[in-house]
């Protein structure tokens, strides 16, 4: 067995081991922990990058390594690393828990990495649970006055029910096809076209990923968890875990291709409701993270647009947008994290005077939010347009129209945030000092968001190559 094939997973397993040993230390040393974590994160990024072009199958074909999975693994590693960069102070996590924090962050990353490579239903399920459980633990790790555990328990409850439903759906799929391997299931599904079990089993099975992606109606956890969890954890949930969910949905949705219209129609409906609901409710939010939660619900709808086309163009767009979403959403969260140094939940009003307090952060915020809103020249815009293009090519006119109108609605609340940060001022608030690495991070993020927005070709070609391995 080629170690390189399983390289990233092994590396992170090792990292988890390192963190595990760190948890055993009697005296917590957050600074040292952080430095180790950063080093490991950077190393992980390197390893994942090196393994980018691997392809092969492992574990009796339960595990497939291809460009598609490796791209998402890289995205996960990137997300992991990025989240680590804003962990230089973890005010909301008790000092002695910080090593555990890194540990669970690593394990959830491992879970997601396994997830994106899995091509077997049970592996998918277990990997999903691994990543979820780590997150369930991470959410109530926060030092809080109750909303942390409240968020944790709600997350867990909704997650448990979703995964129960998913498992039930998987059992039907298993029953209908007699196999848990996607490769075996796929050819058998057309034979089931006359009976509803394949379609509905698939729909039930998708529930778990809808939950991860916070698609309506599995979205209820998102606002609470975003608000209740520590900022860094929220960041991870909002960035990396979405990418993993998108990856899996792309893999699974292919199964629905045989069902044609009725399957996609269900997705179209969910997509439309997701984006409309997310955007409408986001309008009235006051808490910034909660607002972003609703925005993520809306974005789940956008992801679905690409997925439900079940065509190459749509998949390319979805991959592109998933990567884009990771970066642009992270940009915003980074700003939150830097502004709320003490780890509090940031109200939108508290952004007042950001342009004065830290022009760079305010610029990042604008870039990030405009990207989320789909304003050019940003990856958000390009991604959204690619999504719409692919959907339109399949004739989903109304979907595109509603999506485009939704873009307008979303702009409203993003602009409100920008308004607060740019045009209101609170003289009581002093300037925000940002460290040099964060400063460079800012520049890099802005450059990525704008640069790949204008020149998306490389990413698109990469995604195209990746999609070829899935379809």
């Amino acid at each position: 067995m080629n170690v390189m094939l399983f390289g990233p997973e092994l590396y992170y397993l090792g990292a988890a081991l390192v963190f595990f040993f760190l948890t055993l230390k009697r005296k917590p040393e957050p600074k040292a922990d952080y430095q180790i974590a950063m080093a490991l994160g950077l190393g992980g990024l390197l390893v994942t990058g090196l393994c980018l072009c691997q392809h092969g199958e492992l574990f009796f074909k339960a595990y497939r390594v291809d460009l598609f999975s490796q791209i998402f693994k890289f995205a996960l590693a990137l997300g992991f690393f990025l989240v680590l960069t804003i962990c230089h102070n973890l005010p909301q996590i008790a000092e002695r828990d910080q090593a555990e924090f890194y540990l669970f962050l690593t394990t959830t990353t491992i879970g997601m990495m396994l997830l994106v490579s899995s091509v077997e239903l049970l592996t998918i399920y277990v990997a999903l649970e691994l990543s979820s459980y780590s997150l369930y633990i991470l959410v109530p790790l926060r030092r809080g006055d109750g909303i942390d555990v409240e968020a944790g328990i709600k997350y867990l409850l909704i997650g448990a029910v979703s995964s129960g439903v998913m498992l039930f759906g998987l059992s039907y799929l298993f029953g209908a096809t007699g196999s848990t391997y996607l490769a075996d299931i796929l050819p058998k599904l057309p034979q089931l076209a006359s009976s509803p079990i394949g379609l509905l089993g698939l729909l039930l099975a998708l529930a778990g990923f809808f939950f991860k992606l916070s698609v309506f109606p599995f979205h209820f956890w998102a606002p609470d968890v975003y608000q209740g969890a520590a900022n860094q954890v929220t960041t991870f949930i909002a960035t990396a875990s979405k990418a993993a969910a998108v990856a899996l949905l792309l893999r699974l949705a292919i199964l629905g291709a045989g069902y044609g219209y009725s399957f996609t129609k269900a997705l179209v409906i969910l997509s439309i409701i997701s984006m409309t609901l997310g955007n409408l409710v986001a309008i009235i939010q006051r808490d910034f993270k909660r607002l972003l939660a609703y925005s993520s619900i809306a974005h789940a709808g956008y992801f679905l647009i690409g997925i439900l086309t079940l065509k190459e163009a749509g998949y390319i767009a979805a991959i592109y947008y998933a990567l884009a979403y990771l970066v642009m959403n992270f940009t915003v969260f980074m700003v939150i994290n830097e502004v709320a140094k003490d780890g509090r939940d940031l109200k939108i009003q508290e952004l007042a005077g950001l342009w004065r307090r830290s022009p760079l952060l305010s610029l990042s915020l604008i870039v990030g939010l405009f990207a989320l809103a789909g304003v050019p020249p940003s990856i958000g815009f390009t991604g959204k347009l690619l999504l719409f293009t692919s959907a339109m090519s399949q004739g989903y006119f109304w979907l595109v129209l509603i999506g485009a109108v939704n873009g307008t609605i979303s702009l409203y609340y993003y602009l409100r945030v920008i308004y607060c940060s740019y045009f209101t001022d609170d003289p009581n608030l002093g300037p925000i000092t940002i460290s040099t690495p964060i400063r460079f991070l800012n520049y890099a993020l802005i450059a990525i968001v704008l640069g790949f927005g204008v020149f998306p070709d490389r990413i698109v070609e990469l995604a195209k190559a990746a999609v070829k391995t899935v379809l």
Partner: protein
Amino acid sequence: MLISPLMGLMVLLLLKEEQKFLIRAVSLVAAGISLGLAIFVFVAYDKSLGGLQFVEKYEMVKTFGIAYHVGVEGLNAPMLLLTGIVIFTGVLTMWELETRTKEFFIWILALVTGVFGVFMSYDMFMFFLFYEIAVVPMYILILVWGSTRKEYAAMKLTLYLMAGSGFIIPGILMLYAASGLNTFNMLALHGVHFSPWVQKAAFLLLFLGFGVLAAVWPFHTWSPVGHVAAPTAVSMLHAGVLMKLGSFAVLRVAMYLCPEGFHYWAQLMALLATVGIVYGVFVGLAQTDLKYVIGYSSVSHMGIVCLGLATGTVDGLNGSVFQMFAHGIMTALFFSSVGYIYDRTHTRDIHELGGFSKIMPVASAFFITAALCGAGVPGMASFWAELLVFIATVKVFPINGLLAIAALVVGALFALRVVQTTFFNTPNPKFEHFEDVSPFLGLPRMMLIATLVFFGIFPQTMVGMIKTAVIPFLQGM
């Protein structure tokens, strides 16, 4: 041409907020270079050859058929010139800006980059990308440097325009998808014969979407509010150039790609345009804020543009494009004068300003010139434009044409009422100590007037240029 504002923008990013003079100078140079290039293109364009010249092409995303594809032809050369002039004068106009100077010029250069991009792009994707780039900075520009209900105005304007984009995207993508060519290249798409249904739907979407930016009635209400709130140079750019983006896009994308759709909806276009023309002047009559007045006059004048487009004749299109140009310059002049006055007096109420021309004869003269131009006085560029449009309209839509012509009387009343109340009459003693426009600040306004008069006296320079594109354009339909 795209590069120069971008370069300026980059340099500005590096400068410190304190180096105000340098910031201004850099912006001015950037704007000056674009203006120079615009003039160069306008002059160097080979009219006898026609067609697309100065083409640059570069594949962006092969998978989706997106390419950076720019060029100049008779339709956009005037628009480029317009943009060049307005940005140059706009930068000069805002020379005295003190608050957050750097950011201001950054955003305004970003906006201009977008505008140039829209006018030159022959790829729908890039077209739309630049379109949005041109629209969005408005929000920030209005919000930070604006006045009078700026939050409301900025939000309204941005959302309204974005809602327009919400129609444009499906429209564009519809054509993209229906063509099956997997390309956004407009020239290529032009060759496709879309089914009538697609054409009708796409045209309607595009017309409504772009119409919002062109302030087509009844989607115009953002425009007066936005103009009122915006700072001077932004008003200039916005009314002068940005609104043209809308009408230009209707021409460039909607009419170019969906000729049948256009013929189907032409009646509607003409109707909306006519209503806009009549409506604009009447509502403008009741306004007391100078910028509101101008805002509504813009609605009316953009109605003329739209009416010209609706005719679908060579004369109409000539007039329409000419009117875009003329109105752009004229409105820029309007706003720069008003801005100057407002900066000094902090009021735009026409009654309060009464008799202003005694205090600032030169500033007033600028405004009056613009007002006369707005009233369609011969010798100014807009006269010719309106003339062409009206003649063309009467032939195609007699009733609309007559109504629009009749609205001219009210238009004259409208312009003169403002001029009279604001500048004539007894001066308000409150403002007597103000000094008149200094020659330096007068320069941009003089440039604008000179442009207006030049094309008023030699309309052929412009019409001849536009014609080179319009005739093949219509033949292609």
